[in-house]
């Protein structure tokens, strides 16, 4: 038996799950299990209670009202990937998901699980950062809506209390036609990103940049928006000068060093990938 002993709970409603999360000591929430299950198998985590969210139907599903997208926390990554209406509004979601593990892990892995686990290299928090998404979290008495920029509180530490559950994520698709790109460097296909970059770009009638969003994953503990570069691009054509400015901003990030890459290397790669992502997004924006 690999996982440590725990008491298993599989509530059928969010209310029951919140009650358990609010009363049990040393409990872990189990979403898709693609990160927590390995940690259990290796006994990196030793919870007294495991609260399995997989039988709570109300936590999954994708709702689209106009440009507003609300996805339940237990929505499988594969469901997000396959959703045609979502792909039409936010094609970058599908492109980024192709980099998330493998289709076998995406069959189980969830949006909320990815946000709550908050691996620095996780792609979905980066995509949510591009859209200024809000994470809805609840405990048994109140609901909080947390802007994605306030979500990371340190290494693999989301803005989430022990009695809280991530319930959904909401964001607005961009208006009108725009370009997108998600690119990353990893050692192997489906492996953790050393650096990943998402970009959204819309152009005005003169083909100058109207609006830009650039987010990086893998460089810092949480996703990083490149606000200075985004503002510098507005009103300009995407020429070599503009790309250099954006790449230079990416190289300023205080990048982490780990077993796989130094901070210096990550900064260099970040510059290259930001440039590539913007070029691809720009090409798609021009149609």
């Amino acid at each position, binding site marked *: 038996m690999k996982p440590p002993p725990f008491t298993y709970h599989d509530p059928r409603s969010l209310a029951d799950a919140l009650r358990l999360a609010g009363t049990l000591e040393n409990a872990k929430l189990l979403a898709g*299990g693609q990160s927590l299950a390995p940690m259990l198998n290796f006994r990196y985590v030793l919870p007294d209670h495991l609260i399995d969210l997989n039988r709570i139907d109300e936590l999954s599903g994708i709702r689209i009202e106009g440009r507003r997208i609300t996805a339940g926390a237990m929505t499988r990554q594969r469901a997000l990937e396959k959703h045609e209406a979502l792909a039409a509004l936010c094609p970058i979601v599908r492109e980024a998901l192709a980099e998330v593990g493998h289709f076998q892990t995406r069959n189980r892995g969830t949006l909320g699980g990815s946000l709550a686990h908050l691996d620095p290299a996780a792609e979905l928090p980066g995509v949510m950062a591009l859209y200024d998404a809000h994470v809805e979290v609840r405990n048994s008495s109140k609901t909080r809506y947390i802007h994605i920029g306030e979500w990371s509180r340190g290494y693999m530490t989301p803005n989430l209390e022990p009695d809280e559950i991530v319930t959904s994520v909401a964001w607005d698709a961009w208006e009108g036609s725009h370009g997108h790109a998600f690119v990353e460097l990893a050692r192997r296909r489906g492996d953790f990103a050393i650096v990943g970059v998402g970009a959204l770009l819309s152009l005005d009638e003169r083909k100058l940049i109207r609006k830009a969003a650039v987010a990086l994953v893998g460089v810092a503990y949480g996703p990083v928006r490149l606000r200075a570069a985004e503002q510098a691009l507005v009103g300009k054509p995407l020429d070599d000068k503009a790309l250099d400015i954006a790449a230079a901003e990416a190289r300023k990030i205080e990048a982490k060093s780990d077993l796989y890459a130094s901070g210096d290397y990550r900064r260099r790669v970040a510059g290259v990938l930001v440039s590539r992502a913007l070029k691809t997004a720009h090409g798609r924006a021009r149609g």
Partner: protein
Amino acid sequence: MGARVDKRSIALTVNGQRVSREVETRLHLADFLRRELRLTGTHLGCEHGVCGACTVLVDGEAVRSCLMLAVQADGREVVTTEGLAAPDGSLSTLQQAFWEKHGLQCGFCTPGMLTTLTAFLREHPDPTEAQVRDAISGNLCRCTGYANIVAAALDAAKRLREKR
């Protein structure tokens, strides 16, 4: 310490057979299949979701059985590599293609390759080589026999298309 052992009764379908057992809730699905049901075709390589050897089909979807608890399979339909051939033992089209194209060497990764590709070919009846390689990117073959595995998958796809 000396906490009570947390157990549950579960009932599921495995390779078309109804099975029910009382299991410890911390038992993962792969160990349940291997130890309780003696279906040792499902292999355990890494037990953290990287190697793909333990891939099985749950309600038709390819998943890592080392990353699911047996209790989570309660009420579900599981197919392991033992369930891919017909009841009379005749190989599935994919298995036949693996045989003929030498799509296996030591055989350790084979169960995961077969379950993964079975699910993949249902969704992608006419895949490109690149798509096949992407589909098995989460299945490690340390004999590095990928060339023949990819050839077998493409051959199986072709034969399955011809059958329809």
